[in-house]
């Protein structure tokens, strides 16, 4: 690393700590106010609380620095390189791999899937051991379904950017489909399906896909980064609903 780069890095790290502190103030205020005004209790383990808050502030600062020097430039460079190579099939393969890979390993999804499996596979007539095996299988299938859905979402999103389709028609058609098939799906899967759209978009996937979308939109002629660059995440929170509803219909 050159000297100037090192200096740049150091400068970035001086993002005032108070910016992170400010971001956390509302949570601290809410919890504190309720503790004091509503429950009228003093906070018991305030030392642990303080350590936790310092870690959160430190973590948020590091994250933002990493975003600016790592994830954003990386996503933009990939978008530019793909645009220069001009191979649409490879770009589609990349979008799918990125969506599938990140979602299948997503910790929040793993937690939700195992809870959902308890809910879906809940038949008192079968033995508990057999039920557990079924639950594990359901959780795995659910995760795979959501991961395929997100991969598919990024593919549509990228194709949309290349061809310049307006986003809102696609999204509305998607939501219309959701509302249409909801009555056909078993009732205990509906809330799980609707939630699965929200849990897929992790903190690391979001900046990367945003950089990818905006990068693509800026390197293709006639595309507006603001109009065409955003929207990938919207697809990623829509398609899992549809896919999981369909899974629910097939499973029952």
């Amino acid at each position, binding site marked *: *690393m050159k000297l100037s*780069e090192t200096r740049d890095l150091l400068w970035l790290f001086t993002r005032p700590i108070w910016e992170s502190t400010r*971001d956390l103030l509302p*949570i601290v205020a*809410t*919890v504190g106010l309720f*503790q004091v005004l509503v*429950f009228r209790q003093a906070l018991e383990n305030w030392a*642990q*609380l303080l350590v*936790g*808050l310092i*870690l*959160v502030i*430190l*973590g*948020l600062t*590091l*994250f*933002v620095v*990493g*975003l600016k*020097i*790592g*994830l954003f*430039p*990386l996503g933009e460079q990939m978008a530019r390189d793909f645009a220069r190579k001009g191979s649409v099939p490879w770009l589609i393969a990349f979008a799918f*791999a*990125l969506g599938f*890979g*990140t979602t299948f390993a997503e*910790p*929040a999804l793993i937690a939700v899937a195992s*809870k959902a499996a*308890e*809910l879906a596979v809940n038949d008192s007539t079968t033995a508990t051991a057999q039920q557990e095996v079924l639950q594990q299988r359901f959780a795995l299938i659910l995760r795979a379904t959501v991961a395929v859905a997100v991969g598919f979402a990024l593919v549509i999103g990228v194709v949309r950017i290349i061809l310049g389709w307006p*986003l809102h028609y696609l999204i509305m058609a998607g939501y219309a489909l959701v*509302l249409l098939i909801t009555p056909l799906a078993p009732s205990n899967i*509906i*809330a*799980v399906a*609707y*939630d699965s*759209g*929200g*849990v897929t*978009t*992790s*903190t*690391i996937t979001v900046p*990367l896909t*945003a*950089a990818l979308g*905006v990068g693509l939109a800026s390197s293709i002629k006639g595309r507006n*980064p*603001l*109009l065409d660059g*955003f929207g990938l*995440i*919207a697809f990623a929170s829509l398609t899992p609903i549809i896919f999981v509803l369909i899974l629910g219909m097939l499973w029952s």
Partner: protein
Amino acid sequence: MNLVALLTDALLNTLRDVLPIVVVIFAFQLLVLRRPILHWPRVAVGIVCVVLGLALFLVGLELALFPLGKEMARQLADPNFVRGNAQPTSASETNLPIMWHFYYWAYLFAFLISFSATIAEPALLAIALKAHDVSGGTLQVWPLRVAVALGCGTGVMLGVLRIILGVPLPYFILVGYLLVIVQTYFAPRQIVPLAYDSGGVTTSTVTVPLVAALGLGLAEQIPGRDPLEEGFGMIALAVLFPMITVMGYAQLAQWWISRRR
């Protein structure tokens, strides 16, 4: 000490989250695109910062905020607490059924905690920074974050109301989407993709565990609710309402500008 254990655990979880991304990116960059990564030491430092930062952030939340939030949700829905608010004295009335409006502290808490969790959400900060860059500075970071947070707060508050009333989720979703469709036609065109994205972005590291804990805590305390079944559905509403508030914010801003001319 258990801080070390928590930290390694969080670090492993974050690494598991990052690993597939790194594998996919490097495989494509080296095998398909065959181009070196520009400034790779810098990018590598950045990725390490992101992973380390996220792990520290998660441990901090686990130590400081999540246990407190969970405990508060449980207390707010406690029948004794709810009844105590509504009827401070008369003993003869303690057998009255608990009405939905007795839970006002729970609604307020749900709104405030999800509002503030959204403000602290790193993914939303990332999108807001990007939007600021791309729009050449016309889209400010703070108004966008506040608009999204208002939406998330409203969504989660309605989710709490839904659990208490026991109304099926699809009704709420249907009304919300109809509103989104109507707004899409009236909102400024540039904001629409960003508004659609903001819903999915909100529900990340901070919001999902807090909101899930809130739903679970409430459903456990309210008679006739299955915690497993009712705990779901809050996140769906938290995804939906930011779309409405972000488009609403843009409409307001547009109206304000046109009025001043």
